[in-house]
Every structure is written in structure tokens, then in C-alpha cells.
């Protein structure tokens, strides 16, 4: 066990709780951190720019409020990461990995609120037949329609989140970090709202007073759905559901792989695992039914435990529980069972 030796390196070392991270994973962590700081920078610049050109435009005001909301996921990520790095203590024996779940919930709420506000506001605008006024400004003696300026600022605000979000998706999968994943959704929401505003303002220019609201409803619904999906994920993960892939679409393949390792032991007759996602890392309880007459020694249990945790850095907190009969919830733990279905 190398983890005891590194416990002295302090809370912000190269690890998540008790799990020491390989240099590659640590590099991904640092990359994610840089991306999130970059995101905060981009959003703050956008907030200032939009505040300058906003004028009395309700559309721009809505975009601005969304920018404020999109500050929440990066902050949640950075805080959650800091907390998740803390080593387990007597008082917090599981470590603080759950900070990821909490961060995910916070980010999911921000995303949902953004979608709901966008859709609600736009529907209200359509129902009350609100004709958005966009005037002009004086640019060195030329009278320029403000709409051009709004479209330019929005066009500038699109590529940043588009690129950042795309990069975050990849890192989120590698780190198994759902805050990062939700933030990628937030970035998607950001650039889509930007595009919708461009389309909306261009439509207003053509005399289509409804264009802005219609475009906003279009993207608002997709943001709402993303928010709802994340909200559901965050809550069920916090409520100890079976560990799943980062998109929540299927059971995590590591569950199946861990069970296969257990089945491969000659002294094991049946095995089934209860695996929950603590945030970044998993908590594995491997129930094993020994072969008739086989000796369940400490050495065998430790050996199995180490074999499982050698599968992946996410499997560090592994408990091997010898039992006479598998608990009902993991009884699917034989080949071709329901639990393993769909995993790889």
C-alpha cells in the first residue's frame, strides 16, 4: 500500500482523497483546472462586454443573466476538486469525494434555472407580443444600428464556450468528473444562446419582432432538457445508485470487470459487487461466496482486493466481503446477468 506513505503530502497533493493519481491523470486534472480558469476568464470578459452593449434590450439582458449563471459550474468544479483532494480522516472516513456530487447538483440547478428562465421569459414575450426596441448609437459621427454591434459581440462570444465545452467533455470522461461534464453542457448552452441571440436580433432587424423570443425558446428547451438530465443524474448518484458511465447511459464497465476478476479466483464460487460512484472514484463492496471447503484467508481476500484495485485508478476503496449467499441486490453477479448487460 503506497497510499499510507503519501498521506503526509498534504491535502492538495496529486490525489483524490486516499487515491494517488498517476502522472497522466494528474495532468488531466491540471488541464481541467486550466480550462475552468480559462472559462471563468472568458465569461467575465463576456459579462463586461455584454453589459456595455446591452442598452435597454431585454434579449441582451437575458443573455447577460445567463452569463452570470454560467459562472456557477466552473466555480463548483474548482471548489469540488479542492475538497475532493482532502485525505480521509477519522471523522470523514470515506474521504470527501462526494463534493463532486454536490458540485454536480449545484451545476445542474444552475443549468436548469437558465433553461427555465430562458423559456419562461421568451414565452411571456411572445404571449404579450413584446416588440423589442433596438436603437442606434453614434460611432464617430456615424449612426449605427445597435443590432449590428449586438450580433458582433454575440458572434465573438460563441467560439470560446464551443471549444472549451468540447475539450471538457473529453476530460470529464477521463476524470469521471460530472461537474466538468455538466459544465460542458453549460458551455453548450452558452454558445447556443449566443447563436440564438444573433438569429433573433437579425430577425428583429427584418421586422420580425417575435424572432428573438422564438430563437430563445428553441435553445431554451434543449437547455432545460440538459438541466433536467443532469439534475436527475446528480440526485440519483448522491442517492447511491449503481455507478454509471459519465453520461449516465449505462452501468459503468468497471463493475463487470471487477466481478470478472473475482470470478477468476479459484476459491470463489460466486461473486457480485455493489459499486457506487463517490465522485471521481468508486466504492466497491465485492461479495464473494467461497467454493465448498475453500479456506477464506486474509491473504486471499487482500489478494483479491489488490487485484481489483489494480484494474483502474478509480477503484481504490475496495472491500471484499465473504458471505454464504450473495445479497439479493447483487445476485445478478454471474456471467450474462442483468447487471453486466450493455457494459462493453
Amino acid at each position: 500500500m503506497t497510499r499510507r506513505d503519501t498521506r503526509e503530502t498534504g491535502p492538495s497533493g496529486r490525489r483524490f482523497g486516499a487515491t494517488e493519481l498517476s502522472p497522466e491523470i494528474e495532468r488531466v486534472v491540471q488541464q481541467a483546472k486550466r480550462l475552468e480558469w480559462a472559462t471563468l476568464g472568458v465569461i467575465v470578459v463576456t459579462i463586461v462586454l455584454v453589459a456595455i452593449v446591452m442598452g435597454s434590450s431585454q434579449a441582451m439582458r437575458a443573455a447577460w443573466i445567463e452569463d452570470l449563471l454560467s459562472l456557477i459550474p466552473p466555480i463548483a468544479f474548482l471548489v469540488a476538486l479542492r475538497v475532493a483532494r482532502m485525505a480521509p480522516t477519522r471523522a470523514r472516513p470515506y474521504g470527501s469525494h462526494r463534493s463532486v456530487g454536490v458540485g454536480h447538483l449545484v451545476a445542474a440547478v444552475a443549468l436548469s434555472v437558465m433553461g427555465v428562465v430562458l423559456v419562461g421569459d421568451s414565452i411571456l414575450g411572445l404571449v404579450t407580443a413584446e416588440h423589442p426596441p433596438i436603437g442606434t448609437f453614434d460611432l464617430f459621427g456615424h449612426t449605427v444600428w445597435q443590432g449590428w454591434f449586438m450580433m458582433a459581440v454575440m458572434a465573438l462570444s460563441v467560439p470560446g464556450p464551443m471549444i472549451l465545452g468540447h475539450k471538457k467533455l473529453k476530460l470529464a470522461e477521463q476524470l469521471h468528473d460530472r461537474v466538468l461534464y455538466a459544465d460542458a453542457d453549460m458551455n453548450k448552452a452558452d454558445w447556443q444562446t449566443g447563436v440564438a441571440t444573433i438569429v433573433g436580433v437579425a430577425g428583429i432587424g427584418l421586422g420580425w419582432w417575435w424572432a428573438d423570443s422564438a430563437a430563445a425558446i428553441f435553445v431554451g428547451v434543449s437547455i432545460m432538457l440538459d438541466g433536467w438530465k443532469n439534475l436527475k443524474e446528480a440526485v440519483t448518484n448522491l442517492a447511491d445508485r449503481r455507478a454509471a458511465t459519465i453520461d449516465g447511459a449505462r452501468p459503468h464497465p468497471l463493475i463487470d470487470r471487477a466481478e470478472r476478476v473475482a470470478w477468476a479466483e479459484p476459491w470463489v464460487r460466486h461473486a457480485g459487487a455493489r459499486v457506487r460512484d463517490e465522485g471521481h472514484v468508486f466504492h466497491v463492496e465485492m461479495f464473494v461466496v467461497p467454493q465448498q471447503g475453500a479456506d477464506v484467508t486474509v491473504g486471499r481476500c487482500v489478494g483479491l482486493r489488490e487485484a481489483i484495485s489494480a484494474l483502474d485508478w478509480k477503484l481504490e476503496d475496495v472491500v471484499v466481503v465473504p458471505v454464504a449467499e450473495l445479497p439479493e441486490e447483487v445476485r445478478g453477479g454471474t456471467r450474462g446477468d442483468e447487471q453486466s448487460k450493455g457494459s462493453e
Partner: protein
Amino acid sequence: MRAMPATRRSVLAAVLAAAGTGLAACTSSGYPADPDGTLDRVTGGVLRVGASHHPPYVDATGPEPRGSEPDLVRAFAAERNATIEWTVSGEEALMTALKKGDLDLVVGGLTKEFPWTSHGSITRDYAEAEGPDGESVKLVMAVPLGENQMLTALEAYFDQRAAEEAR
């Protein structure tokens, strides 16, 4: 993984479409356009102006409103070949009429702080003056909500006047 490429393609198409309409619109003078065609109707037609008494900007005691703002409105109307139809009343009545589409323009020494923004589009300020409490206020006018061509034409006229005065 999610189906990003499809979304992205459709969004890209939307951006291109928007850019296309934008470019096309650059060449025509009707951009931004009025949803209800106010400026088109006013040009060579009738400009329906609401005026509320507020000396020295609007003096509504005579048969026809006088003062700096009626003068400005007359000059704008002349530029547009429009004849003016005046309605003299209080601000609330005028703004309600503006919202209903019975007026094209409201004047009355309105300032940047004018609270009736749900009833009309407030123009950019065309001049500064001393307010009731001795502080400087920015003078504006009101046009129908979202009639952006009308708004743009009036603001462009303000800029044109300011440039002429500076000369």
C-alpha cells in the same frame, strides 16, 4: 457520447443563414425594418405626434404646439415629406395611445429616466438640459415599441442635427 455533430451542423446552417440575411439587409435601406411599417407610412404621409405641455420644450397653450421640440419634430417631418397631426394630452394618455398604435411619436420634455418604457421605445438623448432639481437631464422622445426603423431614422436625424450645429 451525444449527437453533437448533427446539432452543430444545424447551428452552423443557422449562423450562415443569419449572416446571409445580414449581408443582404446591408444593401437595402429597410434594415432594421418596422414590424408595423411606421416609417414607411409616415414618409410622404401623416406623422401623428402626441405633445404634452412642458415649457420650454413644449408649449401647448396655442392652437398648435410651439417650443424646441415641436420645432425639431416639424423639421424631421419636413425631411420626411410628412404633414403633422397633433394630439395634445397628458403623458399617460399619450403613451397609452402610442402603445395602441394611434400615435407615431410623443414629445413633452421627456428625459432618459422616463418610466413608460413598457409603452414605447425611448430614443437616445438628443440634448441636455437643466432638470427641475437643478441637475442635468438628457432629453428624449418616444416612438412605438419595436418600430426600429422609425427609431433609427429619428436618432439618425438627431445625430445629423448635432453635426450641423457643431459645424
